[in-house]
């Protein structure tokens, strides 16, 4: 097992390096960022200064070395267009995508699996036909279209009913979630200290153990930006309800394709297992139907379903780009698309690396989980 993990990680290093290289050279091929950011009217002089400031006048291999150094140190520089550190942007926007993808995945599983089971148990019944037809429509539906239709239905057609849902953004304007570490007194915001300017003694006295310059602070920020999670653990129910409401439509939109795939897979896999000899044996020895299905059939049928859920993650990230665009959620997908359009090199480089890394880690976890789900599979 340890050996397998070690080998897998070793094997992924060249691929990761390939991704870094491809990303780097592809961003350089996107063209001159000056005109994209400063506008078409920027003079040559202004552009030259801009290129120099961004370090883009250096030889391409020097730039590549700088880029690799940045990745290793975790400092990705500053966004050209938004003039903010890329790391801060990542901490802020990655949680949106994570919460969106997780909600979609949870929806896909808690709806898709029971639907697939029902369709398989009542084979060729109306439930089965509806599930099969629905699953086929689900995979054929353009994500952005469904999103717009849902936005129209729940924001306009159902306006002023209890079903009204917000069509855009992540949280209602005016609401400001308080991060858990601030709420629990682990960190005191400098704004709340009433210290005179440059009075470090006062700041030191009022600070808690967690400070902005602590190495762990970005991690806490990252967790705190998961609005649903943060408002849940701090018990801030008003904000919790608001952010969950904002997440319902995007999560459903993103969930359609994985939901359909999961339902289809559960159905076909359970149908196959129900025809197996050991199910017949279970029935023959007089086990009740519920027990046959839950103990003998489902446990075996859900293994390929777990595989397919893991495989959906790539599609989920691609779908997140479209969902975030449709619902105007500032997540990784929307930020990255904007950055590509605007040739914002630092963002493209950093976000791609993080996505590719996350993708790899998830794939590895999926592979490792097989061993736990199915003891017959030995990883070596």
């Amino acid at each position, binding site marked *: 097992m340890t050996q397998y993990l070690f080998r897998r990680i070793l094997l992924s290093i*060249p*691929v*990761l390096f*390939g*991704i870094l290289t*491809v990303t780097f050279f*592809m961003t350089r*091929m*996107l*063209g001159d960022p000056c005109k994209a950011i400063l506008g078409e009217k920027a003079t040559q002089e202004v552009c030259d200064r801009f290129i120099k400031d961004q370090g883009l006048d250096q030889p391409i291999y020097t730039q590549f070395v700088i880029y690799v150094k940045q990745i290793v140190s975790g400092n990705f520089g500053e966004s050209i267009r938004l003039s903010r550190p890329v790391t801060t942007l990542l901490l802020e926007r990655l949680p949106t995508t994570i919460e969106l993808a997780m909600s979609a995945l949870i929806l896909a599983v808690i709806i898709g699996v029971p639907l697939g089971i029902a369709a398989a148990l009542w084979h060729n019944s109306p439930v089965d036909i509806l599930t*099969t037809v629905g699953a*086929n*429509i689900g*995979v*054929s*539906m*353009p*994500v*952005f*279209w*469904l999103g*717009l*239709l849902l*936005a*129209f239905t729940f*924001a*306009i057609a159902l306006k002023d009913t209890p079903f009204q849902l917000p*069509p855009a953004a992540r949280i209602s304007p005016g609401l400001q979630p308080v991060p858990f570490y601030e709420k629990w007194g682990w960190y005191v915001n400098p704004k709340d200290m009433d210290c005179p300017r440059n009075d470090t003694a006062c700041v030191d006295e009022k600070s808690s153990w967690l400070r902005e310059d602590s190495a762990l602070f970005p991690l806490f920020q990252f967790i705190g930006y998961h609005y649903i999670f943060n408002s849940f653990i701090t018990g801030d129910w008003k904000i919790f309800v608001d952010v969950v409401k904002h997440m319902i439509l995007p999560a459903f939109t993103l969930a359609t394709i994985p939901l359909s795939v999961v339902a*289809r*897979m559960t159905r*076909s*896999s359970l149908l*196959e297992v129900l025809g197996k000899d050991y199910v017949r044996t279970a029935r023959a020895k007089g086990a009740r139907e519920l027990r046959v299905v839950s103990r003998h059939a489902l446990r075996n049928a859900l293994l*390929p379903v777990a595989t397919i859920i893991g495989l959906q993650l*790539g599609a989920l*990230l*691609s*779908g997140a*780009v*479209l969902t975030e*665009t449709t619902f105007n959620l500032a997540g990784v*997908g929307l930020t*990255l*698309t904007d950055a*590509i*359009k605007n*040739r914002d090199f630092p963002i*493209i480089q950093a976000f*791609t690396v993080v*996505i*590719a890394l996350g*993708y*790899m880690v998830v794939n590895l976890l999926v592979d490792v989980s097989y061993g736990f789900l199915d003891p017959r599979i030995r990883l070596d």
Partner: protein
Amino acid sequence: MFQNRNTQDAEKQAQQTPEQLLTPPASLWRTTLKRFRRRLSGRLGLAIVAFVFLVAIFAPILAPYSPTEQLIGKENVKIREKPCIHLLGCPADKPQHWMGLDGNGRDNLSRIIYGAQISLMVGFFTVGISLFLGVLLGAIAGYWGGWLDNVIMRLMDVILGFPYLLLAIALVSISETRSIQNAMLAIAIVTMPSYARVIRASVLSVKEMDYVAASRALGASKLRILLTRVLPNAITPLIVLASMNVAGAILDAAALSFLGMGAQEPMPEWGQMLSRERAQVLSAPHGIFFPGLAIMITTLGFTLLGDGLRDALDPQLND
């Protein structure tokens, strides 16, 4: 290879009478066709695809207007006019636009009808390019092996390491011009690794077979061996994969156009139409409803057709 994959057929053959055994066995295509016809989903998919093809071919006859004609000032209409169908209670003296008008005062129905041509072209050309590139690279990798194999297949791994839509967006961005052709090329590149893997595996499994060695001994060229010995062995998974990918290509191209990275005005591409009317979804939902519906129906047709083909060609393959 085909026969022993399908045990059901083998059983059936074993039960045949002596006269039946004297007649030649049913060809791959005939058994496939027979199995295909048994499945409702495949037939339904074929019907939908045929319908879209007919709409595309007869677009000039079917469409009441030109897809680019602006009707403001020519008729008593305003931009984003709501759909008007006399049968559903719209006054008969008003111009009948079944799907309403778009933001430039053009007839949505005509644009959607012409859009079928673009969608079909996108679906088939994208898969065609992808198939060509994937088969070429996969065959080279499998046949020559060694460092070339390593380089090509690691490159495929890198492509698969990105979420495909983001990579497609980046590829489109490299070129200065945004067009449907660039979007198609980008999608083709992003989807080629799956073909490369299939064909490479097939080459590797066949390379050492006696009949390939025999061909080589007879002096057949590598290309000839590839085309006549290796490809036929991989044709089933390739067809299945390609037929499923047509639907994906149509959907992805529409998505790229929706993001502004594909088809541009005034091309009546469905994703692009949706994107243009997107901001007005709350006041004029018909502008996005019909293009999206068209995308969905076309994709559904190809998905069902692909499913049916897969079941017919390779009953052993799972979902």
